[in-house]
């Protein structure tokens, strides 16, 4: 009960601050938290990255294994994305089968990677209709301090950018080679706090929010995925202006991923 009361007071405070264009952590409405990227964090993975976005911490690992292509795409490799919101990362997560929140994170991240054509699936075909590479992207949320979607895609994109196809290990080629990565999608998440719309929400801002909108863009100037979540609404004009903001943030964040550091 005490927690609920504190939460309500905090939420009102967050909304009051937002009305003046201010935020609890001192950021401007259009400012991201500090981002750090650590590619190659896990040596047992074929590609990995630890991402810190403020206090949110997400680890992505890529594994490639030979498998069988889907019947309807015999000349392409297979991509699977999975996000685990493990109970270690937040008191609100419980053990057990994936909850809708975790499924949403995986699917929204997967959608961006797929629609942006991040990895060349045709290039992952080994023998048409028989053998192909299956690329698993596993996302582990280690600390949930808000904006899991953006952090998860940043981790996945960084891990894929630094991944190696283990062709030698599986006796498919003489040597391992780097995984080819084309377009890098970046997701940019906003929440509505009254009449103000802020980027990169914290956990508390998400709880206080009246609607969340994620927009994924790629460097070819295309919008590749969107997802509205939580309770609340956005006008078409809101969406148009947020798309503009998403392109600006996307360019900056993409440069960090390409650079492979902060």
């Amino acid at each position: 009960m005490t927690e609920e009361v504190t939460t309500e007071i905090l939420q009102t405070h967050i909304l009051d601050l937002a009305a003046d264009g201010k935020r609890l952590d001192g950021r401007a409405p259009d400012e991201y938290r500090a981002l750090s990227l650590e590619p190659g964090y896990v040596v047992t993975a074929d590609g990995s990255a630890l991402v810190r976005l403020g206090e949110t911490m997400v680890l992505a690992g890529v594994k490639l294994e030979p498998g069988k292509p889907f019947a309807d795409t015999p000349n392409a490799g297979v991509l699977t994305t999975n996000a685990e919101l493990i109970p270690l990362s937040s008191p609100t997560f419980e053990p057990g089968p994936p909850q809708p929140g975790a499924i949403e994170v995986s699917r929204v991240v997967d959608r961006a990677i797929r629609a942006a054509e991040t990895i060349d699936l045709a290039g992952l075909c080994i023998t048409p209709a028989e053998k192909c590479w299956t690329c698993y992207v596993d996302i582990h949320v280690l600390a949930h301090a808000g904006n899991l979607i953006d952090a998860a895609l940043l981790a996945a994109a960084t891990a894929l950018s630094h991944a190696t196809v283990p062709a030698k290990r599986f006796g498919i080629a003489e040597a391992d080679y780097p995984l080819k990565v084309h377009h890098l999608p970046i997701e940019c998440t906003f929440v509505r706090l009254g009449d103000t719309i802020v980027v990169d929400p914290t956990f508390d801002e998400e709880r206080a929010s009246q609607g969340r909108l994620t927009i994924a863009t790629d460097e070819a100037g295309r919008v590749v995925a969107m997802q509205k979540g939580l309770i609340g609404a956005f006008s078409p004009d809101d969406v148009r202006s947020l798309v503009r903001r998403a392109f600006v943030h996307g360019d900056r964040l993409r440069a960090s991923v390409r650079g492979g550091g902060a």
Partner: protein
Amino acid sequence: MGNIGAKEVPVLLSPEGLRIDGRKLDELRPIEIRAGVLRQADGSAFVEWGQNKVMAAVYGPREVHPRHLQQNNKAVIQCRYNMAAFSVDERKRPGLDRRSQEISKVIAEAFESVVFAEEFPRTSIDVYIEVLQANAGTRCAGLVAASVALADAGIPMVDLLPAVAVGKVAGAIALDLKKEEDNFGEADLPMALVPQSGRLVLLQMEGHMTEEELSRSLDLGVAGCRVIYEKMKAALRERYSVEPVATEAA
């Protein structure tokens, strides 16, 4: 995505600018909505939309199951979007897959944005959507059916929620994609509108569009929603209108 061995792409847009089923770019498929089709449910609706057939039922406000989901200050809205195994070309494994769970979540959140849930604390409003026959746009058809079912159940709401998907087909922005257009098109953008406020409570997108195309898609979708809105109201009027009884003087 290059040639990954997918099936031959059909001609999606004729030189005259007509679509695979002869529709214009801004034309909806035929839509029929019936309210109050199930006796047992508190509210229900059936939507036939192109070749989609979707049934929705609403139960509640009633006790919350499981109990721990109960909220002291408002009703919880639980939504289950499910596709029948026989609703698609290749048999779908029964039960909720990840796609269905995601759709259930965004639909529940769309309704939570318009239902006066605080009027029914400690209860649950359960929304069940069953897709019986699918041909692209089932989440929008399901949302429209569920919205009419909520009204049929007498649940107070800000407004009905019309919904439609806009997409990009052979480079053109088109309203209400059917299956071939969805499979071979370049983008899909489903949305649900609150007609009174002009705001969107469901918005998803997959594919690729430029900023300008996206902007036009939003306008096209909102216009489509307003047409569907009229059909939803008409369905409710038909269900509840009463013929004035001629009172004969004795």
